[in-house]
């Protein structure tokens, strides 16, 4: 705990994503659409020592909640992630993302790898998928039925 405190100070309001696999935090920022022009404070700790994981990443987002779609996206990238919601310097809610996922459908994050899938053309739809298997990951496009394997999904993350 002292390590973490040295790295980044407590946040007043927002979200902490802990237990992210080492090196995956930048992918999570990308999925959350947090870029260099983001207006709020974001703290990222990479390769933090962890008893359970060896090394892990942590992301702290001030004044930012996570939508259900975003939780699912994070879950794909960091299945063990633990989220704390911070309200006035206090943890108002803390949960494992995996426990929050009730449906196996998600959207965003991935692009369908089928070149003739309608979602890859100029349509106002967000690609949507069914997670058919977690490990190794198997995902199916809800529009065109194409199944994507973990090795190809990883290339996109």
């Amino acid at each position, binding site marked *: 705990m002292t390590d973490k405190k040295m790295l980044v100070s407590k946040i007043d309001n927002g979200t902490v994503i802990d237990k992210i696999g080492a090196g995956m935090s930048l992918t999570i920022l990308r999925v959350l659409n947090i870029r260099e022009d983001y207006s709020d404070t974001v703290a990222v700790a990479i390769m933090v020592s962890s008893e359970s994981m060896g090394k892990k990443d942590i992301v702290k987002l001030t004044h930012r909640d996570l939508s259900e779609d975003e939780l699912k996206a994070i879950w794909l990238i960091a299945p063990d992630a633990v989220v704390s919601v911070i309200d006035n310097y206090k943890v108002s809610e803390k949960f494992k993302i995996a426990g929050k996922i009730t449906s196996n459908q998600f959207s965003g994050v991935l692009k369908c790898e089928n070149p*003739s*899938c*309608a979602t890859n*053309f100029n349509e106002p739809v967000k690609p949507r998928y069914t997670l058919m298997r977690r490990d190794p990951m198997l995902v199916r496009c809800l*529009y*065109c*039925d*194409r199944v994507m394997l973990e090795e190809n999904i990883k290339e996109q993350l």
Partner: protein
Amino acid sequence: MQNFNHLVSIKDIDKEMIESILKRAKEIENNPKEFAHRMDGKILSTIFFEPSTRTRLSFESAMLRLGGKVLGFSDPKTSSVKKGESIADTIRMAHSYSDVIVMRHYLEGSGRVASEYSKVPVISGGTGIQEHPTQALLDLYTMKKEFGDLNGLTIGLLGDLRYGRTIPSLLYAFAKYENIKVYLYSPDQLRARMTVLSDIEGKLDYSVEEDLQQTIGELDVLYVTRVQKERFPDLSTYERVKGSFIITPDTLSDVKEKMIVMHPLPRVGEISYEVDEMSQARYFEQARNGVWTRMAILDLILEEN
């Protein structure tokens, strides 16, 4: 029974709905006059991003026989779709002009996109290599007419099972019945897609077969599809395998007495003309059945919406 809002995949409907469609098709065929005004004042839009005279005319004929009117375009070159207009926008135009839409598109997933943007029912006339649900339904109608019941049938699917868009629709439909057996015959390169097979795994008794002649004697239905040159990496592979997928009177020398041969048409040599005269040939009747089946689909989908 579930809602019948759109028909873009056979997976959208249950067995009960399939049976209702087949039953309605029979009622219409037996007594078309009774249905001649069912669509009075209604308009069908046919939107074909890919040409298909057969499917389009079959739907237009169905709508006209129900007393409805038809509008649409089938030549993308003369319409705005080739200029990059999206499916979503095209559909939002069409639904303000019509009560039901039939769409064919060369992209997979296009049917689902269309159904998400349409305020009126969307019926797929084929989406890429994905599915062709109304073709499958008219095929089921043809089989049911012939045998009375689909349960208990042994059905052989032959030809291009990988890119043929009706194949997944047929397999999904067969899987809804308790007791259909399916043999799959195709060149190695054109076997049914893994995704499709995994969908029916445990739900349908199927097996991949090397040689048609070994099992042809068990078949009630032989369903033949087109094997296209373009699907092969080189011409010599195509030339080598194509002979095994052509049906001649010889192929049919040792079949069940009441066995039938079906084909979605158009054919390009997969079934020799001599077979047309044989008692097994059912492909021309199958095409006729398309109109009754599509009338039934239009009638039921507009009854609910």
